[in-house]
C-alpha cells in the first residue's frame, strides 16, 4: 500500500490552484469506474439503448431543416443543409451536454460527497470524458453523412484545418468544464443558477453559429457572435469539413486562451467550494 507513514494536515487554509494531480492519479481507477458507470447506467432498461445517441441528433437536424432551412430560409453557405446542421449539432451537443452535466456536480452528488472524500474534480472530469464517447458515436454518424455528400456532391471541400479537430474538442471540453465548475460551485449556495442554466444553454446556442453561418450575421452585430468563445470552434469545425465559412487562427487562439484562463479561475472557485460546500448545499 502506498502513502504509509506520510504526514498530512487538515487546515482551514486554501491552496486555490492546487490541481491535486497526485491525488487524482491515485484515484484513477475511480475515474475509470465513474466513466463506466455513466455509460452503462444511462440506457439501462431502454429498448433502443445507445441508439438514442444517434436518434437525437438526427431528429434535431430534421427539425432544424424544417424550421430554419425551409420556413425561415436561412442559407447555409452553399453546404448541404443536412450536413451543415448535423455538424453544428454534433459539436455543439458535446459542449452543451458537458456543461449541463457538470453544472450540477455538487448538488447532484451531495449525498455521496457528504459521506466520503475523494478529489471532487474526478466527478466532472469523468462526465466530460464519458461524454466524449457519446460525442464519438455522434461523430461517426456525422462522418457517414459527410462521406455520403463527399462522394455525391462537389460542393464540399475538406481541408488541412481538419488536423486541428482534437484541439477543438480539448478546448470545448475545458471550456465546458470551466463554466460547469463555476456554476456548480455557485449553485451550492444559490440555487437560482439551476433555473438559469436550463434556458441559458438554449439561448447560448443562438449566439453560436450552429444553425446559421457567421457570414449571415450583419457586420454590425458580428462581434457579439465572435466574442462568444464557442463560436470560432463551431465555425472552424464546419469549415474543416466543408471549406465553407471562416477560419481565423486568431479566433481559435482567443478561444484557447479563454478556456485556459477560465479553467484556472473555475478551479480556484471549485477548490474553495469543495472544502465547505457540505455546510451550505
Amino acid at each position: 500500500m502506498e502513502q504509509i507513514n506520510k504526514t498530512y494536515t487538515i487546515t482551514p487554509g486554501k491552496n486555490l490552484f492546487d490541481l491535486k494531480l497526485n491525488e487524482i492519479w491515485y484515484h484513477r481507477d475511480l475515474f475509470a469506474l465513474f466513466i463506466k458507470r455513466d455509460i452503462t447506467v444511462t440506457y439501462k432498461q431502454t429498448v433502443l439503448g445507445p441508439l438514442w445517441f444517434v436518434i437525437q441528433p438526427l431528429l434535431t437536424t430534421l427539425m432544424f431543416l424544417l424550421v430554419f432551412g425551409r420556413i425561415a430560409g436561412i442559407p447555409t453557405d452553399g453546404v448541404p443543409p443536412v450536413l451543415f446542421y448535423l455538424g453544428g449539432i454534433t459539436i455543439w451537443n458535446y459542449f452543451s451536454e458537458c456543461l449541463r452535466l457538470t453544472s450540477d456536480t455538487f448538488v447532484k452528488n451531495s449525498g455521496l460527497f457528504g459521506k466520503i472524500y475523494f478529489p471532487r474534480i474526478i466527478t466532472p472530469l469523468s462526465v466530460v470524458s464519458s461524454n466524449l464517447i457519446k460525442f464519438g458515436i455522434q461523430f461517426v454518424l456525422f462522418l457517414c453523412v459527410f462521406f455520403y455528400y463527399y462522394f455525391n456532391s462537389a460542393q464540399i471541400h475538406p481541408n488541412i484545418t481538419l488536423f486541428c479537430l482534437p484541439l477543438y474538442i480539448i478546448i470545448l471540453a475545458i471550456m465546458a468544464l470551466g463554466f460547469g465548475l463555476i456554476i456548480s460551485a455557485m449553485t451550492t449556495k444559490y440555487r437560482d443558477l439551476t433555473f438559469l442554466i436550463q434556458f441559458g444553454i438554449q439561448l447560448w446556442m443562438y449566439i453560436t453559429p450552429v444553425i446559421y453561418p457567421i457570414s449571415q450575421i450583419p457586420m454590425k452585430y458580428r462581434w457579439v457572435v465572435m466574442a462568444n468563445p464557442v463560436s470560432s470552434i463551431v465555425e472552424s469545425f464546419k469549415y474543416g469539413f466543408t471549406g465553407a465559412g471562416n477560419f481565423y487562427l486568431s479566433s481559435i487562439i482567443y478561444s484557447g486562451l479563454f478556456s485556459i484562463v477560465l479553467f484556472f479561475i473555475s478551479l480556484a472557485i471549485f477548490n474553495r467550494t469543495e472544502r465547505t460546500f457540505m455546510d451550505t448545499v
Partner: protein
Amino acid sequence: MSVVIKIENLSKQYRLGLVGTGTLSHDLRRWWHLVRGKEDPYLRIGEVNDRSTKGTSDYIWALKDINIEVNRGEVLGIIGKNGAGKSTLLKILSKITAPTTGSITYNGRIGSLLEAGTGFHSELTGRENVFLNGAILGMRKREIYNKFDEIVDFSGCERYIDTPVKRYSSGMIVRLGFAVAAFLEPEILVVDEVLAVGDAEFQKKAIGKMQKVSRTEGRTVLFVSHNMTSIQALCTKAIYLKDGTIGGLISVKEAVDLYFNANWQNIGHFKKEKLKTNLPAEIIEARLLNENGDTSDSFFIYEKILIEITWMNRQGVNVNPNFMLLNRQGITVMVAVDTPIDWYGDKKNKKGTYISRATIPGNLLNANDYSIHISLDSGSPRICYESNLDVFRFKIIDSMDEKNMARGNFSSVVEDAVLWPALEWNYTFLEA
C-alpha cells in the same frame, strides 16, 4: 506509542437558518473584511451549540477548541448526545468539510466509513458496485480484485452478486457495503454508527472485524456510536462531546458515565399538564430517581431505581397505586402494588395528596429497555381509577464492571434472560 492523530484547537462554525437574503450581505461583509486584511467579523460571535435552547445568534460553534492526541493502535470512542458535534468531527477528519480554525495532523491514510454502501448505484450489479464502492473508499482496482471473494463471502450475498442492487433487500445492501469497507486497509479508520444496522448475526461479525483490525493489525480506529455496549466492547479510550467541546481523553468507563448522566434533565419525570378533576383518584406526577435522588432514564445494572408517584385522592376512595414493568420484548417483567404485606390497617382513603415510593433493587433486572405503566386501582372489588400506559421508558445498562455486579467475572452477555439477580449463593466442598 507514537501519536498518529493530533488535533489542535479545532473549531467549526455553522450558520443556522436558511440561505436567504441575509446570506449575501454577510458574505459581502466577510469579503470586505478579508480584503482589508481584517479578521472575519462573524468568527468572533457564535454561541455554544445547545440544541434545546433558543439562542440569540445565527452562528453557532458545532465544535470549539478541540485538542486530542490519539496513539497508534488505539480505538477511540466518540460519545455524545445528538447534535453534540460527533458527526461534524468525523466529517472534518474525513475531509468532507474543512474546519473553521485549527488543524489536524495525521500519519498515514484515513479511511472513513460514515455510511455502508456509499455511492452504490441501484442499476449496477453487486459485483460492479463492489468495485465502484471500493474505489470510492480509496481502494485500487487490483486490491479489490484480490479481496473480491473474501468480500462476497463476508457479506453473505454470493447468490445475488450478479443481480442489480435495486433488487436487494435493504439489509443486503448494508451487508455488502460494510463488507467492502471491512477490507479497507487504511492506517486510520473512522467509523460512524454503521454497525447499528443489519441483523444481530451481522453486527456481531462487524464488531469482531473491527476488534481484529485494531488489536491484531495495530490500526487506529475512531468510532462514534450511541450503543454503549459496542463502545465498551471495542474502545480503549474515549472522548465525551458536549455542545461541541470535550473534557479531554478519558477512560471508556468515565465517558459512558458522563453520557448517561447527561440525560438527567427532564427525563424520568412525568407531570400532568392538566388534571382531569372528575376522577375519584388521579395521578399528578411521577418520577424515576437514582440513588442520588436525581431523575434519570438510564441506570447501571447494579443501581437501585426509585419510583415516586404523586397522586390525589379526591373522593376518599380506597386506592392502591401500582406499576407494571415491561421489557423491550413486551414481556411483563413484574407488577408491583403499593400494599404492604400486613395490608389490613393500611387504607389510603383520606381525601388529599399522597406520595408513594417504591424501590427496585439493584442487581435484579437484566440489561434491557423498559417501559412502565402506572395505575391507581382500588383493592377489592377492583376498580381502575386511572391507568397511564408507557409513562416512562428507561434503560438498564450492563456496565461490564466486575465489582458491583451479579455477573462477577462472568464475561459474556446473556440477552435472553429477563432477570439477572444477585442471589445468595453458598457452596459446600464435598471431597478432594
